[in-house]
């Protein structure tokens, strides 16, 4: 990960002092609730259903064991002994006290962490592929470019009061593991004809109320121009994005209303003025940032050809991933054990995980947008030892990529925006599909749950998506199928009227029946099958024919 220099540290320390003063004035009644709101949000602080919620940034998802120990300390000292990893590669605390937030920020700053711009109508935490730096299909190490963008976006004076929040994702490998088509700006590294590095620039994607797949507005942007080009996009958005209706304020609506071609022309015209200006990146700066990243010092090893069977084999198959360095592997720690809210980790688990990271993976770890953790650099000959240790911590559920690796937002149990609960729905589905053999037979399937249309649980891109809706004050769930987060990205289609909470697992089971009956082979995934045969057969098996509707809509589990 990137190590701060004195200036980086000083800026974060000054932010703590600034927010301490703002909080003091708010508590003394000298700043109104309305005037304080944007200030606290730009420090990740929400006022929630029961207490404030603090969102701490894990910039582009990488952090150290020392930082994780601090996160554990914060969970213990200021919260109720746990934290929640979110789909934005951040960690959230649900029970801090407003008075203590400046102290939490000071503790975070002591380990080079912060909560800067984790909320509010500004440029948010930049996300990337959680296999950056170790993937075999890597074009560039995306962490370096994410850090350059982090510094550029942190306290950007012109873009702190945008029409709405702004999310940037950057992907450095061939495969898109950062959902670049579903962000306000997506940047996908590409190589030009002479091997030079650049970025494909995608604008106007997003989930939420109006899910839209982004538009490519530039096929190749040479790396030197990354900041000036992104600045041109932001300026056009800041000036012309809608501010009259918060539901139409995201850049995707501006791109849609202008048309992608007109929008591109406006950006290019603005960029013409900024191009080659002082913000043009230099080789020296890229090298400087690179040199401040701590790299694992790999040992010269050969790849082992492990083919274990049994539970260790199942875990190897699902939770262990190939690595560009011979003899090493990346490992996903599943935070999706049945009965535990997706993404939740206790302080004791955090401390134990930090110890394992030191022992097995150079003291570094990553958080994924699927709300799991990754040890990126594990020696293959130590995988079995690691598996044993993870098992005893409840972090070795072999379900990565499978139906029970559910993405879910905190939902109505915590969030004041939610229409419906997410966590109990996730748990009920996990309980129904608790047979591992059956789960592996179903194969790759992303099931995502959002408690409301803000889509924090990414339901639009779930192969099966579950969305909490409000029907005359009661919690209901709308089901979509066919969404996909990348390669290619797709937005799921609604199958029909919404269901009561207890019916949702039953519906999932009916959808799976159709898939298992229709798939061409075990290699055809659920989502591919939906795209091939369409949603009609699925609808029919759930709702019955129009002339003979199903009568057995009973919960499969009590």
């Amino acid at each position, binding site marked *: 990960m990137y190590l701060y220099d004195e200036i980086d540290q000083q*800026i974060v320390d000054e932010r703590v002092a600034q927010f301490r003063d703002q909080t003091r004035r708010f508590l003394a009644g000298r700043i109104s609730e309305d005037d304080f709101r944007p200030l606290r949000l730009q420090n990740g602080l929400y006022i929630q259903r029961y207490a404030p919620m603090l969102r701490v940034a894990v910039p582009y998802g990488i952090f150290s064991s020392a930082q994780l120990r601090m996160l554990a300390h914060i969970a213990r000292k200021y919260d109720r002994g746990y934290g929640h990893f979110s789909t934005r590669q951040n960690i959230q605390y649900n029970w801090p006290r407003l008075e203590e937030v400046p102290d939490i920020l000071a503790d975070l700053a002591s380990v080079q962490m912060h909560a800067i711009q984790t909320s509010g*109508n500004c440029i948010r935490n930049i996300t990337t592929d959680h296999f950056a730096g170790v993937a075999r299909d890597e074009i560039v190490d995306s962490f370096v470019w994410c850090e350059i963008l982090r510094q550029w976006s942190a306290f950007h004076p*012109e873009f*702190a009061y945008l029409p709405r929040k702004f999310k940037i994702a950057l992907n450095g490998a061939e495969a898109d593991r950062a959902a670049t088509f579903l962000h306000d700006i997506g940047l996908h590294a590409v190589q030009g004809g002479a091997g030079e590095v650049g970025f494909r620039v995608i604008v106007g994607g997003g989930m939420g109320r109006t899910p839209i797949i982004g538009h490519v507005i530039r096929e190749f942007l040479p790396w030197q121009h990354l900041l000036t080009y992104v600045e041109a996009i932001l300026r056009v958005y800041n000036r012309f994005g809608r501010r009259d209706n918060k539901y139409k304020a995201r850049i995707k609506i501006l791109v849609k209303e202008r048309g992608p071609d007109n929008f591109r022309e406006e950006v290019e015209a603005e960029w013409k003025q900024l191009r080659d200006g002082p913000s043009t990146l230099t080789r020296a700066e890229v090298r400087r940032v690179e040199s401040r990243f701590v790299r694992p010092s790999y040992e010269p090893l050969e790849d082992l050809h492990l083919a274990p069977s049994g539970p260790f084999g199942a875990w190897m198959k699902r939770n262990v991933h190939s690595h560009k360095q011979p003899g090493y592997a990346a490992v996903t720690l599943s935070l999706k054990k049945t009965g535990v809210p997706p993404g939740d980790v206790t302080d004791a688990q955090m401390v134990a995980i930090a110890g394992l990271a030191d022992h097995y993976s150079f003291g570094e770890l990553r958080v994924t947008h699927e709300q799991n953790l990754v040890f990126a650099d594990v020696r293959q000959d130590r995988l079995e030892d690691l598996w044993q240790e993870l098992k005893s911590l409840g972090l070795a559920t072999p379900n990565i990529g499978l139906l029970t690796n559910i993405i879910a937002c905190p939902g109505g149990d915590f969030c004041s925006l939610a229409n419906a609960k997410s966590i109990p729905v996730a748990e009920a589905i996990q309980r129904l599909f608790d047979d591992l053999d059956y789960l592996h037979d179903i194969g790759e399937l992303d099931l995502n749950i959002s408690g409301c249309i803000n889509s924090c649980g990414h339901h639009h891109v779930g192969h099966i998506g579950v969305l909490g809706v409000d029907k005359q004050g009661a919690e209901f769930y709308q089901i979509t199928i066919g969404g996909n987060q990348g390669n290619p990205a797709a937005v799921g289609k609604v199958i029909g009227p919404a269901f009561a909470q207890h019916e949702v697992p039953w519906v999932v089971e009916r959808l799976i029946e159709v898939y298992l009956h229709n798939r061409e082979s075990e290699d055809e995934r659920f989502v591919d099958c939906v795209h091939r045969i369409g949603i009609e057969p699925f609808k029919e098996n759930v709702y019955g024919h129009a002339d003979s509707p199903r009568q057995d809509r009973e919960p499969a589990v009590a």
Partner: protein
Amino acid sequence: MATLIRRGRIENPPSPEAGQVLRLEPGDDPAAVADRLGAAARVEVHFPSFTDGRGYSIARLLRERHGYRGEVRAVGDVQRDQLFYLARCGFDAFLLRDGQDAGESLAALNDFSEAYQASVERPQPLFRRR
């Protein structure tokens, strides 16, 4: 009487002044008044609400694109906690909303001692000075 902070000093009440004033609303395009900038003693950029950030882009365009050297004054919902960003975007005068502490507001211009990006105040980004 409202407090004015101008060129790093508190004026309460603001000292009298002469000369032409141009006033821009958030939706206005600085390019549309470019030919009148030469004659203007100051440009006022209006913030109907501090959360409307269009004025920040307007100020940068006035300074960086149109080379305007006169006073650029933030008026409207102008509060202490936005002054640092406003100054970096090229504002050099701030007509504070009622109830803002003038001394604290002046101090807010120094909330941070360094910044990463290029700005009107420091045209070279940090990475070219590091």
